Structure formats: structure tokens, C-alpha cells
């Protein structure tokens, strides 16, 4: 079993209405030092067996489903790293 953690965030130039609303709320709570909040998605994917193509598979899943390359970027990491080579 391998655990893959994927982080998806909007590209810099993309509007992040959620992040903006959260920033305002944090200011409202009195934390003026907070400059900006950007909100993204976080996935924990557990994969049964480690195939040779795990890295490729994860990238395909990210490119086609978890992130839209037109507006988002992603990065991922394997937690059980010996599983991938």
C-alpha cells in the first residue's frame, strides 16, 4: 500500500474567490498580519499495489481529473517512498 498526497492549487493569475472570502474573515477576526490566503485541494490517494507505472498513473489522474491544467497546478508526493522507483 502506498499513500500519495496530491496538492492542487490555482495558478497565480486565477481568481480565488474562496481565498479572498477567507482572508476577509481572518481580518474580521482581528488578525491583520495575514496578507493573503489561497485555497487549494488536498487529496490522499491510497494505492493497493505498487505497479511500475505508479508515477505515470498518478500524473494521468492528476492531469485528467484532479487538476485542470488550464487553471491549476499540482504537485504530489509518495509517503511510502520505497514503493516507487
Amino acid at each position, binding site marked *: 500500500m502506498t499513500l500519495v498526497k496530491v496538492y492542487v492549487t490555482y495558478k497565480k493569475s486565477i481568481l480565488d*474567490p*474562496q481565498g479572498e*472570502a*477567507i482572508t476577509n*474573515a481572518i481580518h*474580521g*477576526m482581528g488578525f491583520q498580519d495575514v496578507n493573503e490566503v489561497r*485555497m487549494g485541494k488536498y487529496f490522499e490517494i491510497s494505492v493497493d499495489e505498487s505497479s511500475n507505472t505508479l508515477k505515470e498513473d498518478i500524473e494521468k489522474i492528476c492531469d485528467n481529473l484532479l487538476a485542470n491544467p488550464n487553471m491549476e497546478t499540482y504537485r504530489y508526493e509518495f509517503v511510502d517512498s520505497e514503493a516507487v522507483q
Partner: protein
Amino acid sequence: MKFAVIVFPGSNCDKVLYYAIKDGVKADVEMVDFRNDSLAGFDAVLIPGGFSYGDYLRSGAIAGHAPIIPAIKEMANAGKPVLGICNGFQILTEIGLLDGALIRNKNNRFICETVPLKVENDQTIFTSEYQQGETIMIPVAHGEGNYYCDDKTLARLKANHQIVFTYEDDINGSVDNIAGITNEKKNVLGMMPHPERALEELVGSADGLRMFQSVLKNHMDRVNQ
């Protein structure tokens, strides 16, 4: 009796709730902006449905920090009726006036439909005009209406008769099909279904009217005692 309808940025069922009081039960009602910090002069608080702050982050989360919130808590603590519908229910759980949380519907999809509800407790100020066990038709419209609480909380809600409405069918995955609960003192009610959309047969059901009549009647009874 004077009702306050709280208006958060993004509330979108506020006007209909206002009509429900003004035209439905013909009582005094006023819209109150979220920036106010007092509810002096009001006898009951209604928190409408909608998407406060876009429901960005988590439904009801950001509204939970609005200036009006302490005043709502004060009303609740003073035993005045506080009713949260849909997003209002979500806000009430976020600010801790009600137990549990509302998470995404089990099938991950928004649902809009008029559904049968069972009245589980007709001994509250909100439901005295209904009959215990009665089935009423009330519209739901939510994406995050799946009521969740842990087993201990559930046992407490049951023991204390805080579960007021349940869905007759499992529409969203809620624990025990819960559609609406009260606090321990039973003066705060949160429910996902929209009674304010069910005031006339013309739009599908008039079963919601009696909820507002209950609140009004109980208040008048108390005042006249």
C-alpha cells in the same frame, strides 16, 4: 411579537422568510443586517437559507464570525426562539448553538425536491401546531445537508427528545434521517428543509405555515399568561 430575519451577505432565502412572517402569519418582522450587534426589541430570530459568504470554505463557517453572532447567542441563552433554516441550521451548528455538523450529501449531489418529513416532537414552541408522527411535505434544497454527530451526541439528542423532524426517506445520508434538531432547552431549532417555501398550495404545499403559527401562538400564550 416581533421577528428578526438576519441578512448575511449571500443569504438568499431572507425575503421569502420575511414574507412568511409578514403575509403568512401577519406578524411584525424586520430584516436585520449582519453588521448589527444587538437584537434588542426582538422576540425571535430567524436565520435564513442561502449561501452566506458563498459558503466558501465550509457552509456557515464564515458567517459564524459576523458581528451579529453574539447577539444571536444572547437571544438563545435568554430562551427566545431562534430558528435556523438550511444555511441557518449550518450556521447554528458552526457557532455551537446546536450539536453536530452538516456535511456533504451522501451522493455528493445537490438535491432540490419537496419531501415528506415526519414530525418527531410536537412538544416544542416550533411544532405545537403539528401532530406527533404526522407527515408533512416540505421542500429541501441543499448540497450539504447530511447531518452528522457522534454516537454519544445522538444518544443525548434522542434521550432529550431534541430530534424534531426526520426524513421519511434517506435523501442525504443524515444520521437517523435527522432533518431538524433543537438545543437542550428546545428554544433553538435548526432544520435543513424550508418551511418558508411551503406556505401555499399554489407552489406545492402549505404545510410549512403551521411552524410559524406555532411560534407566534406560543409567544402570545406566554405573554397572555
